[in-house]
């Protein structure tokens, strides 16, 4: 999925002397304090970490009280959605004015009615709320279904995504996968330039996936 990337970081974790005999636990708890918060240094939300401590030796740093700094390498999984990226999430709530989904189990995404294309109509069927496409009856968005949408903006503090369903390649993921020719055909009625733009976007997202192993970011982590 777009927006996810792996990186390797060289970190130094500074620990309080009382943690000297349980250093590995202390390191893990320091690293867990990074989780689910946006980190500017890494450029994303840390979702997972995999540390490998390089050596048993640590440097004692003088100060008000002497801390010791442990050097380690860690593989980090980062999440950083950017505008126009295509993401998927599970629908948790539908209202006549909005669709709410949860991405990767932790990030809430909302699509306001202004960002839902006119193709979709809100209906209540058998007590259940559902968005149905006017042109393709089988294209439905229900609670529990996987939704594919484009990112409008990302609030880094609360990890809240504002999304849009204006583009034709967005909607219920299952239907879109089964009926690719339907929506790409709908797309071809648009100008040629737009279709080219779409293909280019598709290519760049592919590139991101391939670049997983490569970037190495040298960072210092003060704790």
């Amino acid at each position, binding site marked *: 999925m777009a927006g996810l990337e792996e990186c390797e970081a060289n970190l130094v974790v500074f620990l309080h002397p009382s943690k000297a005999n349980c250093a590995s636990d202390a390191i893990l708890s320091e690293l867990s304090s990074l989780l689910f918060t946006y980190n500017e240094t890494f450029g994303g939300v840390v979702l997972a970490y995999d540390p490998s401590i390089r050596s048993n030796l640590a440097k004692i740093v003088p100060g008000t009280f002497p801390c010791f700094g442990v050097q380690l390498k860690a593989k980090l999984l980062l999440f950083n959605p950017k505008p126009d990226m295509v993401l998927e999430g599970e629908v948790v709530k539908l209202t*006549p004015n*909005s669709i*709410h989904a949860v991405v990767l189990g*932790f990030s*809430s995404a*909302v699509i306001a009615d202004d960002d839902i294309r006119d193709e979709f109509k809100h209906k209540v069927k058998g007590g259940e709320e559902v968005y149905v496409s006017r042109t393709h009856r089988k294209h439905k968005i229900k609670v529990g279904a996987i939704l594919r949408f484009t990112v409008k903006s990302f*609030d880094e503090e*609360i*990890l*809240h995504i504002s999304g849009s369903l204006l583009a034709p390649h967005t909607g219920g993921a299952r239907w879109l996968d089964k009926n690719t020719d339907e929506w790409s055909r709908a797309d071809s009625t648009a100008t040629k330039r737009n279709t080219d733009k779409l293909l280019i976007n598709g290519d760049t997202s592919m590139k991101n996936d391939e670049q997983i192993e490569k970037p190495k970011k040298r960072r210092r982590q003060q704790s």
Partner: protein
Amino acid sequence: MGVPDMDELSFTDSQLHYYVKDALKSAIQGDCDFYNQLVAVMHRKERLSAADVALLVTCLKALTGAVSCIDISHHKSLLAAILRMSLWDYGTDVMDALTDALESLASSNGEHVNLCLEMLVSNFVPPSAYFEKHRGPSKKSEVLDRVHSTLIDIANVVPLSPMILEKLVRDKMPHVYVKEQPIVMYVESMLRLESGAMGELVGSMALIVLMDKLIELDVEIAWKDILEDDFQKDVFDFELEDLAGPADNFNQENKDYTREASMQRFCTGNHAEKLDSLMVLTFEHLQCCYETGRLVQVFEILLQSFRITVLTAYKSKFAQFVMFYACSLDPENCGKLFADALADIFVNGVHPEWRMSAVAYLASYLARAKFLPIPLIATMLERVVDWCSKYCKNRGSDINPKAHKVFYAGCQATMYVLCFRMKQMLALPRLKSQLKLMQIDDILGHPLKPLQVCLPSIVDEFLRQVKENRVCFLPERLADQDFLESEHSTVFGGIEKQGMFFPFDPILLANCDRYIRPNYVYWSMVRSSYDEEGTSDEDVADAYDREDGMSIPDEEESDADEFIPGFEKMSITPRDSSHRFGGRMPSKIRPSMSPESL
């Protein structure tokens, strides 16, 4: 489009929805007329007519649909007006509309989540005017049910909101100086979160904050409110009912200071009442946890908090009874866990004061917990004795209360437990031989002279029981030996008198007592097992089973709230008995045989 007047025209829902959206967008541009009317509607609170209510509800519903247009900086007054509303001031229609609006607001924009959650948490407690109006309990459940279900709904849509909620609940906890009812209601909601759908996420915070609050209140209650200067009683005599007959230096005037006088005098204090109510609430919650099979997990969190907060607090008075009650609900798991943890701290701990505190807790716990099986008590005792034995094995040094305070604490703990449990242990042959193997005799007779350092009343009682039970493998006291308060025993435990800490002495909080009483060993139970003639083993067991241990007139019918019959006196610090002799007592008042001769 002209600005419609709210009170005059009637709209359909979708029209109003359109107007509201328009108003919000216009306000950003600078045209605030309709927007201001909207804000004014939100402010209406007092004496709402049916039409007012309908208007309020409709506006809220329209806003719910238009949340995507609400901007945190341009619509400050509207947001402030909505967030200032308290569910307690309105009927269920408005409550529903308001909670829907909040949910919608929180899910639409990350910036609003904090504000909405804060508003909901402030609704845990009604505004102060509520308490004066004496509204019925139905209002409370109407509001709180909605508050809690909204919190869960928000968590479903914004999965990270419990992280924010946890911090908010902790930060908004009322101060100890707030009145009783608001604190109790807040804690009720906290515990409801603990047992609710978000329990796994915010539950441990709730329990830890609660324990912290209990200790805070506990610390506010001064020890001097509990100890009475005129009391001239010993550790054990303290608890006994005013027996007809010899009760040492018991004057007629002192009688008023027994029983309910101390209880009443004590319980009218603000903090004591708050602590009482909060602890009862906690007990009820623990009962529910037990019934739903969650007690062990909850207990583990409480134990963690206990280690950090209660154990380290200077002589906590009542907060520890939370642990006692939890153990009584599940002796096999929690009861054992607690004893093990305390023994571990004593044996393996690093900080001497905390080790002494731990063994004092252990001794008091083993002595008072009716629900603990005797074999377990014997095993725990063995751990303490083993440590003492190893400690003094290679030490030949002389008496020194400061240097060996942990050792003396261990000895005193052993004697204290045996004062309560000796007869029961001797009744079972297996435990009798286990006791024999512990070689307590050697420890108490060691050159470190624990019998001279430990509290005289305990040493006295212990030796007296040894004699009565005719136990050959425990130290004997020679005829004219009398353990008086020596300079060593006063030094023991340092300035803070750590040596005189019996944490599970009868609780003085009236409502809590009702929960603790059925599981509690009163000293009178132990005494009565000796006082009866021809006590067989069954009689010993009976004495412990009896609720009060003594046949006193049934006082349950009288106002149980103020009056607590008999045996709940605190037998803590024995009075400085030196004033019996009109002054500071010399360390040896008469020639006595030193313990070496034992």
